[in-house]
């Protein structure tokens, strides 16, 4: 141990704020990146699953849009 006490460890002879800011930002950014990536992976996986589950339930029938070009009735009450 290079320090005599825990408070000395925190203070680092006056360099504490610099060192700890750096470590804090490092840990926060790295953890944030890990968290964000994991969350995105999960969201993507769920989206895949949902669409495949839906397709499995409905069979292969795809909705087919046919253009009719009829005017849309809008009630004017």
């Amino acid at each position, binding site marked *: *141990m*290079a*320090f005599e006490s825990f408070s000395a*460890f925190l203070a*680092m*002879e*006056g*360099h*504490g704020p*610099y*060192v700890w*800011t*750096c*470590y804090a*930002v*490092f840990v926060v*950014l*790295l953890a944030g*990146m*890990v968290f964000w*990536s*994991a969350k*995105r*992976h999960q969201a*993507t*996986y769920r*989206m*895949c*699953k949902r*669409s*495949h*589950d839906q397709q*499995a339930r409905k069979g292969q029938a795809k909705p087919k849009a046919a253009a009719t070009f009829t005017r849309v009735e809008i009630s004017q009450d």
Partner: protein
Amino acid sequence: MWQFFHKLGSPKWFFGIANRFMPWLLAGGLILLAAGLVWGLAFAPKDYLQGNSYRIIFIHVPSAFLAQSIYIMMASAAVVTLVWRMKLADVFVKSVAPVGLMFTFLALFTGAVWGKPTWGTWWVWDARLTSMLILLFLYGGAIALDRSINDEKSAARAVAVLVLVGVVNIPIIKYSVDWWNTLHQPATFKLTEKPSMAMEMWVPLLLSVLGLYLLFGWLACLRMKTEILVRERRTRWVKELVLAGRK
């Protein structure tokens, strides 16, 4: 040979391999990084010139290492993308660019904070910091280009071209910035590291560099898996994978 190459490019194959290695990468990375950082913070001896502020080195140097090597890795993958059109290569380029940007930012930030107690100023137009800043711009450009092209495959190939152009430029930029630095500044600030480090400082540094590389490997695998799922979501193997509930 070609079959192997083809297999190497297959996203399905990658999924299997990544799943097998990821726990090891994560565990190894966390343990090594934690060991390196704790050792560096609490047990390594004080630097007789810079005092305790030098302990920033244990995150600054690994971040800078990764920032540069990720760009080189991206450029190698870019060659593979453009020459062999291997699917995995462009997935890699796209997936790791934000990670590279983060490490570049970390290297710059820790460098600036380290500069305050050492040089008495947050920022000096030092050759190394300036090159790092330009690397940040290069990453930023690659990500901005990627975000503004809708089609994933075109985006990946466009980014590959940009990254290749960037990597040709990096030595030129580095050389010219060094030259510019000597032209404009007498070498007053020259104490980032002592030429020879004590063993007690060197080993934790090595540990944290290795740990961060492993952690990057894990992150890259995870992000590549996400990207592959997005791209291949309508293929049969993803369908089977998802319906079976495996991750």
